[in-house]
Each structure stands twice: as C-alpha cells, then as structure tokens.
C-alpha cells in the first residue's frame, strides 16, 4: 500500500476485483503497471484462482510485489456490504442513515450468523470470536441503513 516503497523492498497493493473478470485498464492496469508488474499475468492467475466463484463477485485482493517485480496475491472473502445488500435484496445501501430516516432493507440474525461464518474463514480473522464478527456485521448493516431483526 506504500507508493513510496524503496525498490528493494516489497510493496503491498490492495484492490477489489470482480471474480473472473480481471484486466480492465482503469482499476488494475495502472496500479500494477506502476510497480512493474504485467497486468495480464496477474489477471490470468486471478481469473484462474477464482473460477469457482460466481462471476462478478467483488473480491478484495492483496498483492505483494517484490523488488524483482514478481508478485504473489491473496484473495479474501467478498466485502460484508456485498453480502448484506444481497441478503436484504437491495442494490445500494441507504443514503441517509439515522433514527430520523427509514431503513432501506432488512436482514435477520441467522443471515448475519452465516455471513460471519464465511468471514471467519479469512486469514485476518483468526483472533476474533464468531460473536465478535457477528457484532461487526451488525455494525456494518446499521451503517448502511439495513435493519437487523431477529
């Protein structure tokens, strides 16, 4: 993520890429090109690794580019907001959030639980309890204007 990284050290790059649909110039091309990586290489590998995922599902990727311009990447589970919008059946989250404004969608606790289970499998979540992750999902829902019901 540091754009001023010295040439010898590796740099991290965080992107959200639709599964199976990598390589448009705007998001990926320049970001990788700046670090000397051929975007076609990344896209082929990414699309191959995500071939079991529904096409178009946004997937966060963390790309580590080493000093010699080789790269490795890790794919994570889709963003929580993606799950919540689908579970609530809405296209976009709310624009006005708060007590004075109506909710734009509804999600129940069992869906929250299932979403949390998927998120728990991610690398960065090992230290969190499932209860903690559920609380995080509920927090995301509330900030999107999605009501969490039992």
């Amino acid at each position: 993520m540091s754009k001023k990284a010295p040439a010898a050290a590796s740099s991290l790059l965080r992107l959200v890429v639709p599964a199976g649909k990598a390589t448009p110039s705007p998001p990926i091309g320049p970001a990788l090109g700046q670090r000397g990586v051929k975007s076609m290489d990344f896209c082929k590998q990414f699309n191959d690794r995500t071939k079991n995922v529904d096409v178009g599902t946004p997937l966060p990727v963390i790309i580590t580019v080493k000093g010699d311009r080789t790269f490795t990447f890790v794919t994570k589970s889709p963003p929580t907001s993606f799950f919540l919008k689908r579970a609530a059946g809405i296209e976009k989250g709310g624009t006005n959030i708060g007590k004075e404004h109506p909710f734009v969608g509804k999600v129940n606790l069992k869906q929250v639980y299932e979403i949390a289970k998927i998120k728990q499998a991610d690398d960065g979540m090992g230290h969190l309890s499932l209860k903690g992750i559920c609380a995080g999902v509920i927090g995301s829902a509330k900030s999107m204007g999605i009501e969490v019901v039992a």
Partner: protein
Amino acid sequence: MLKSFTSTAFSGLRTVSQQQARCIQVSARSLNVKDDSAPKAKRTVASSAPEGTVLKGINYMKDGKDPVALADDAYPEWLWEINDPEVRNARIANPLDKKHHKEARRQAIKGENFIRDKKT
C-alpha cells in the same frame, strides 16, 4: 506505598502484602465481570426465519447453495442477545461491567468536546 514495607526484618510479610496488593489491583482491573447469579430469562423472541427458510444472498460460489436456516435452538445463545438493546443497556447500567465505564468515558469525552467546540 508498597515500598514502605521494604525491610529485611519483615521480608516475608512484604512479599505477602505485595502479592495481596497485586491481586487486588488485578481484580479491580478485570471489570469484565459477568453476573450469572440471576436466572437467565428464556428467550422470548422467535426468529423471523423459521427452520427450513433459505437464507438468500449468502452463497457466492458457483457450485454452492444458499444455506438453510436451522431451528432457533441450533444457534448459539449469544446470537439472540447481540442485537438486543435491553441486554446492552443492562451491561451499561451495571457498574461492575467494563461497558459501563467505557460508555461513561465516551459521554465525558463528548461533553468536553461539545464545550470546547462551543467556545470556538
């Protein structure tokens, strides 16, 4: 305070009192006390998704299917409490709970910020 007990004649006593003081410090800090003495009320709310409902939008793999809801009892007890404002308010009202002090601190900070912003 602990150093006042330092003396070779009372070295045995010093160790014990230091240990005791340390124990008291530790237990005063662990304010995550959960009060389990009251009988747990039976969960009154039933889930809006009864057993067998398909939980839509969760699956994102090509060869997978959306998970099906299990019976309410199959889910852990805490699931029904994390969205319950009464449970949260009870924790905030309980002065032995960490949440009480966190919330008090938060409100104090908000109050100070409000006053500070009012002045400028």
